[in-house]
Each structure stands twice: as C-alpha cells, then as structure tokens.
C-alpha cells in the first residue's frame, strides 16, 4: 500500500457526487414533466372573446370556451324584474353555497347576487346542468302558455333541464325540488370593452 486509505475524503467525494447526481436527475425530470402540462397553443386557446352587441334583447346563445358550452343571455328589463319575488322557491337565492363557481369574487353588491352577472343585462354561465351535466333548455317567457306542463304555473322564466327536470330562473338560480344541487356555475369573465367580454 502506498498510502493509508483516506476514508474521509472518499466519503466526502461519494456524498458530493451522489448529491450532484441526484440534483442532476431531478433537474432532468423537470422538462419532461413540464412537457405534459398544457402546451402553448392549448393555453392560447384558453380564452374566448365574445362581442355582446351581436345579441338582440331576449336572445340566448351557447358559445364554446375551452371546449365547455357557455350560456350568454341578453336579458331585458322585464326579465330582470322577474328575478324578484321567488326567493322562497330557490335553494340558494344569494349564491352562498360553499362550492366552486357558485359565487364569484366580483359579486360584491346585492344586485350582482340577484342578477349573478357583472352587468345586469348580460348573463354568462356554464351551460352544464349542475346535476349530471346535460344542457338545459332556454324557456324565457313566464307561465305555461309557451311551455305547457314542462314548467310549473308560477314559472317566471328561466332554464329547464330535460334530462331529470331541474329548473333554474333567468339568473341560473336553481329551484327547490330540482335534483340539481347548485345554481348554474359561473365562468371567469371580464369586460374588455363596453360590449365585449373575455372568458377565461
């Protein structure tokens, strides 16, 4: 033997090599894992713009956002009036349920809780029924004249889901007796101009 084994130096070098090696492998894993997160083109398609001025009064459209159908309704003054006076029939009139997307950070005034919108005229919600996901039918006129027995006689106008009978008012608030547990989910949106919204 030329010199005694410097075990301390060996242990140090083993430790250092292992530490650096582990760091290297972890570093190498990062881009691979990240590659599985949504790609740039997917993210670019993650917002949808919509020009509200294309809607006439009383009109409802369903548009796509991230592959999800979204209701956009242009409500008249009369329709907004019909949101009042039936709180006792609603499961969650003020959208207070502790569940994602029932309320929104912009819901600051009681009027906004009533209309469930940033501006009263335009409603923007997820079009999936909160029961099992069917898309409800738009039945805006009050009473049974247009809709027959599919809606109750006190019907103020709103949405009716044909799958299992859930009923919502013109702000997407769910009525008692519906199998759906929550009001129609809200989607994140903001106004980029007076009549333009950006969803997502």
């Amino acid at each position: 033997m030329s010199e005694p084994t410097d075990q301390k130096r060996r242990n140090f070098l083993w430790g250092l090599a292992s530490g650096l090696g582990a760091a290297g492998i972890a570093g190498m894993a990062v881009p691979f894992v990240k590659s599985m997160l949504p790609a740039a083109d997917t993210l670019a398609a993650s917002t949808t713009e919509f020009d509200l001025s294309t809607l006439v009064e009383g009109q409802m459209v369903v548009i796509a956002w991230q592959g999800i159908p979204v209701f956009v309704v242009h409500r008249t003054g009369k329709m907004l009036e019909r949101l009042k006076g039936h709180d006792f029939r609603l499961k969650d009139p003020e959208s207070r349920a502790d569940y994602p997307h029932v309320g929104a950070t912009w819901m600051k005034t009681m009027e906004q809780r009533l209309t469930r919108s940033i501006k009263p005229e335009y409603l923007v919600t997820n079009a999936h029924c909160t029961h099992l996901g069917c898309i409800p039918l738009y039945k805006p006129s009050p009473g049974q004249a247009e809709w027959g027995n599919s809606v109750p006689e006190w019907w103020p106008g709103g949405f009716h889901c044909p799958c299992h009978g859930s009923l919502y008012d013109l702000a997407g608030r769910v009525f008692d007796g519906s199998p759906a547990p929550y009001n129609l989910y809200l989607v994140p949106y903001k106004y980029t101009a007076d009549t333009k919204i950006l969803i997502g």
Partner: protein
Amino acid sequence: MIERMLNSSVAQWLDERSGIVGMVRKHLLDYPTPKNLNYMWNFGSLAMLVLLLQILSGIFLAMFYKPDAMATAGGYTVAFDSIERIMRDVNYGWLIRYIHAVGASAFFFIIYMHLGRGLYYGSYKKPRELLWIVGVIILLVMQATAFFGYLLPWGQMSYWGATVITNLFGAVPVVGDFINELLRGGFSIGDPTLNRFFSLHYLFPMILVAIVVAHLHALHVVHSNNPTGVEPSKKGLIPFHPYYTVKDLFGVGVFLIVFCYFVFFNPTGWGLFLEPDNFSPANNFQTPAHIAPVWYLTPWYSILRSFPDKLLGVVAMALSMVLLFFIPWLDKGRVRSARYRPVFRQMVLLFFASVVVLGYCGHSEPTELLKTIGRIATAVYFGFFLFLPIVTKHEKTRPVPQDV
C-alpha cells in the same frame, strides 16, 4: 450506504422472495472484472445509458407525434405539423426532440466504438462467440429501428430514403416484391407505411431491450475480455463496485458533456443528425438533388453503390453485415489482442479506415473520383474478411504477457 440498504428489512423481505440481493451482489457489486480495462470498455455502459435516453425521450415524443400523412396547408402533413408543434408549442418539446435526434447518432457512434473495441482486442474469440453474435444482432435491430424512425418526420429525406431502401428489399429475387408491399402497405410509401413504421419504431426498442438482457447474460457467463487478451488470474480481478461503477460514472459525465454540447449548441450536428433536406416537407413529385441515408448507415450504402448491378449491390450490402457474424471463425489466430498481433493489427486498423472512407463516400455526391475511392474501400472492407483466415493461420505474434 449500499450495505445498509442491502441489509435492510425491506431488502431481506424482497430477497427471500426473489433472490434480488444475491443477484445485485453477484452481478453488480462483487462481479469480478479484470483490473486493467481501459476506457474503450466504457462504451457498453454508455450504450445502455443512451438506450434508456432514447426510450424515455421517445415515449414522451409519442405523446405528441401524429403518424398521419394527410396533407395540410403549405405542402405539409399532419405528421410534419405535429413535430413542429413539439418544437414550438409543447413545453420543452424542442429539448425532448433534440435529445432523441442527437441520441440516435450518439447511440451509433458508441456502438461503433464498442464494436471496434471487440474487433481490436479479440473479444469475439472463444468463449465469447455467442456474445459477439448477439451483439451483431443488436446492431441490426438498431439499424432497423433507426430506419423506421427516420420516416416519421415525413420530410424529403424521410420519404425518399424510405423509397430507396424499400426498393432495395424489392430487389431480392422471388420474395422481394412481396416484402416490399408488406413494408409499404401500398404501391408507394404513403400513409399506411407511416402508421406501421411508427408502430414498429415503438416495438423494436422493446425487442432491443430483451436482446440487450441476453447480451448481458452471455457476458456474465464468460466475463469481460481485457486489453491483453489473456484470461486474468485471481490477482488480476477486482470487484465491479466500486472500481468500475465509479469509472463508468466518470465516463457518463464526459459523455454527457459532449452530448449536451450537441443538444444545446449544435443539435443538427452540422447537418449530420438533422439534415436540412428533412425540413422540406415530403414531395413525391420531386426527388432531392442528393439522397443519402443518415451518416451511420452510409458505409453500407456506399458498398451498395459500389456495384453497378442492382442485385449484386444488395447482396454485397447484406453480405457486408452477415460476414460480421462469422468473424469468430474466420479469425484463426490463437492470440486474442491486436496488441500482440502486428499483422492482424494493420488489417483491423485498415478495416476501420475503410469503414470511415466508405461512410464519407456514402454521404457525398457520387462523383467519379469518389466512386473509385468507394470501390477501393469496398475492396479493402471485403478483403479484410477474405484474408483473415489466410493471414491469421500463419501470423507471427509477439509474446503475450502471463497475466493482466
């Protein structure tokens, strides 16, 4: 620390039910290895590393790649579009793609060095003939894998390279046309070809892993050769761990520096790894001015081109690979390592040189001068196999050491 892990209760539990601790000790830690191995012995572990890298990067690329030759705007295809999407939109997609492209070339470079080591030091000689044969099979499976993979980007070189090579198989008498149609799935290279090549490109590496396991098993039965070619006595053996684990890790470090230089600073490899023509979308009405396979297939291509007759060229090319299998029996010398065989040494170095020259010729435009040089190199290449049995039967060798 390894000892602590091997003696832990988890390890004991596993060992009682699988023998894993025993295997790790026998084949990785205590495995007796000659103490005089030089750095030419690092290429085996490097090959395993690159195989792993290719499989890893390949699996991730397959999450985004679409094997569809349907036309899209600009003369492109869904397949070509999907690769550009990987390069531009997938997070770090460009990195994964470059790892795979550079890795393919790295894999062949390493394998050629590994093969060269085997030839020079006589690692194919008894009792390692089977080890050698399995190794040559690995080379062939690698070449097939690379061939399938190269079609996938659906660039000009992809399309026309595949056209030329499948036509080669078509030259085989009797069954040629059938094989050709089987490979293509149609009358020419097209969407069916692309889909099946994608499937085969994913399959062949799995076959490769199995063959590599067989290769390692065969190795562990006969144990490694060493630069002297002399079987070591007990004094000449050291345990694989820590000596060769540490030396292999150092080799990995050096390799990764070179590899990452290419991936990050020169991913096209001066146009050798990612060829410019392959950034042009495949156009079945226009052949590129200059078709050549990727550099690692050019030596065999050059041999093919050396013969004016189509069938003769194909036979010669096939023979150039098949002859490799027979080296353990063509070499009749009794001394293993070229270190002590001056005549054999010249022959084998000349052989290496001929492969390099063939590679250069195969990659370049076939001018009259290069055609002549290519033919000379082809003669040298086959001359090696031809003269091996004659020369080695009577060669004068130098005295061989007693031990390593």
